[in-house]
C-alpha cells in the first residue's frame, strides 16, 4: 500500500536497508519470521462469529453476520459469501472517512478469492431452499490499528471469525422463511482447508514477511501468496517487480510457513474468550 504522507528520514532508511542486507530487522526478527500473534474468538456478542487479531501492533477485528438471501443464478445450491473490509480513520493518521478505497477493496477481494477456492466454508450447508432461499454470510473486517501487513492479519481475522461462526436456525413456514436468532448451530468448517496468506515485501533484493508499517512504506514491491498448505488458492502482486525465481521461492516458503502458522491458529481459536479486549 502506498501512503503518500508517511515519511521516513533517509538516515533511518539507510540503517534499515543495511540491517536487512545483513539478514536482520530492527525488532530482532529474521527476514521470514512473523511478529507475535494473538487471536481471540467470540469477542463480539452481537455478531454470529467474531475474532480479534493482534499481529505486533497491527490490530484487526472481523465479525460475521448471517442474513436471509436469494442464491445467485449460477450457484442455486450454495450460500452467498460477501467479504468487506473497512479502514476507519481511527486506525491510522493517513486513513480518511468514506467508502472503502482501492486498497481496502483489493484486500477484501483477495481474501474472498482465497476463501472461495479453498473450500474452507461449507457454502453448500448454507442453503435453506435450493434455488430460492439461502444464507448470505457477511464477513466484515475492520482495521483498528495499522502497523503494517493488513492483508495477512485480515486473513487471519477472517478465518478465525469463520471458525467461530454460529448459524441462526431457519424456520420455513409455507412460503416464508425466517431466521430464529435464539437458536444457533455451529458452522462446520473444514480446518484442513483453512487458507492463509503470506505477503512478501521486497526491500532491495531481499524478501521479508510481516513488515511493520515502516518497513512496508519503504518497500519496493509486494507479493501475496494464499495457500491451504498444499495448493495455491490465490496470488496477488502489488507494486514493484518480481522475477520467476523469486515467485518460485515465495511459493515454496509459503507452503511451510502456512503449515506452521495453521497449527498455531487452530490452537488459539479453540476456546472463545467472551470479553472484548484489545
Amino acid at each position, binding site marked *: 500500500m502506498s501512503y503518500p504522507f508517511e515519511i521516513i528520514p533517509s538516515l533511518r532508511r539507510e540503517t534499515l536497508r543495511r540491517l536487512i542486507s545483513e539478514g536482520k530487522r530492527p525488532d530482532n526478527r529474521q527476514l521470514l519470521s512473523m511478529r507475535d500473534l494473538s487471536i481471540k474468538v467470540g469477542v463480539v456478542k452481537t455478531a454470529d462469529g467474531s475474532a480479534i487479531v493482534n499481529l505486533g501492533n497491527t490490530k484487526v477485528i472481523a465479525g460475521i453476520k448471517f442474513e436471509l438471501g436469494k442464491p445467485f443464478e449460477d450457484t442455486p445450491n450454495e450460500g452467498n459469501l460477501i467479504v468487506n473490509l473497512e479502514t476507519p480513520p481511527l486506525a491510522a493518521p493517513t486513513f480518511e472517512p468514506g467508502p472503502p478505497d482501492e486498497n481496502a477493496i483489493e484486500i477484501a477481494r483477495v481474501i474472498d478469492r482465497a476463501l472461495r477456492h479453498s473450500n474452507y466454508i461449507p457454502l453448500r450447508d448454507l442453503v435453506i431452499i435450493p434455488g430460492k432461499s439461502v444464507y448470505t454470510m457477511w464477513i466484515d473486517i475492520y482495521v483498528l490499528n495499522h502497523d503494517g501487513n493488513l492483508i495477512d492479519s485480515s486473513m487471519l481475522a477472517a478465518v478465525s471469525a469463520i471458525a467461530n461462526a454460529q448459524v441462526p436456525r431457519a424456520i420455513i413456514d409455507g412460503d416464508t422463511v425466517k431466521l430464529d436468532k435464539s437458536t444457533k448451530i455451529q458452522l462446520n468448517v473444514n480446518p484442513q482447508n483453512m487458507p492463509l496468506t503470506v505477503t512478501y515485501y521486497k526491500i532491495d533484493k531481499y524478501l521479508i514477511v510481516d513488515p511493520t508499517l515502516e518497513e512496508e512504506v519503504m518497500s519496493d514491491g509486494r507479493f501475496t501468496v494464499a495457500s491451504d498448505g498444499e495448493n495455491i488458492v490465490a496470488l496477488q502482486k502489488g507494486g*514493484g517487480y518480481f522475477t520467476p525465481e523469486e515467485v518460485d521461492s515465495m511459493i515454496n516458503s509459503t507452503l511451510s510457513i502456512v503449515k506452521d502458522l495453521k497449527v498455531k491458529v487452530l490452537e488459539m481459536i479453540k476456546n472463545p474468550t467472551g470479553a472484548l479486549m484489545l
Partner: protein
Amino acid sequence: MAKQPPVPLLSNGKRVDGRLPEEHRPVTMQVGVLPNANGSALVAYGNTVVLAAVYGPREPIPRYITAPDKAVIRVRYHMAPFSTDDRKNPAPTRREIEISKVVKEALETVVFLEQYPKSTIDVFLEVLQADGSTRVTSITAASLALADAGIPLRDLVIGVSVGKVGDTVIVDLNKLEDNYGDGDLPIAIAYRKGWILLMQLDGVWKPSEVKRGLELAFKAAENIYRSMRETLKGRYMTVVQQ
C-alpha cells in the same frame, strides 16, 4: 468449478476455438488512433478489443494528488456497457477498481516517473468488446499508448493470461474458458528485463502448475513483444516522414 460448460473446453487436445493449449489468439495492434490523446493504442487478442489513451504528463487535477518528486500515474480500467453479453452497468464495479489498481502498479514500475515531477500521467482503458483476458489486453494496450505518447519507459509491458482446464495449463483464455475453466492466472511481463509486473491467481493450483504457467506466459510474450516493437517502429517512421 461445479458449473458445466455448454461445450467441452478440451477435446482431443484442442480447445473450443480449435487452438492448442499453449497457443495464443492472433494479436493485432494499432497506435496513434486517437488524435486528441497524447498517446493511444487499439489492441485485440482475438475477439477481445481494448482501446487505450494516455493524457499527460499534465498538471494534476485535483492539485492535492501532486507528488513533489515524481509523476503520479492514474489508471481507469472500464468496460463499455455493450462489451459483454448482458449489458454491463457503466458504474465502476469493485472488480474494475481492483483491476485499475493492479494495472497502475504494473505500469508505475516501468515509467521513469522521476522525469516528470509534480505532474500526472492518466491512462484510460476502455474494453470495447470482451472475450476473456481483458485485463492483460489492457496492459499491452496501455504500454503501447505510453510509448506512443513518447513517455520514456524502462521496457515494454506485455500482458498474457494463463488458465487451467482440468490439469491442462492453457494460454490466453477466451470468455468460455474464463467462465467455465478451473483457474485464471493473469500475468504482465517486462519482456527484456524478465520482470513480473502483474500476477494474480484465481482457482486452485498446484505449485508446479503455477511454474508451468509462468513459463508459457514468457514464451507467449515473445511474439507479442516483437509485434509491439514493429508497430511502434512503423509509427515513429511516419512521424519522421511528416
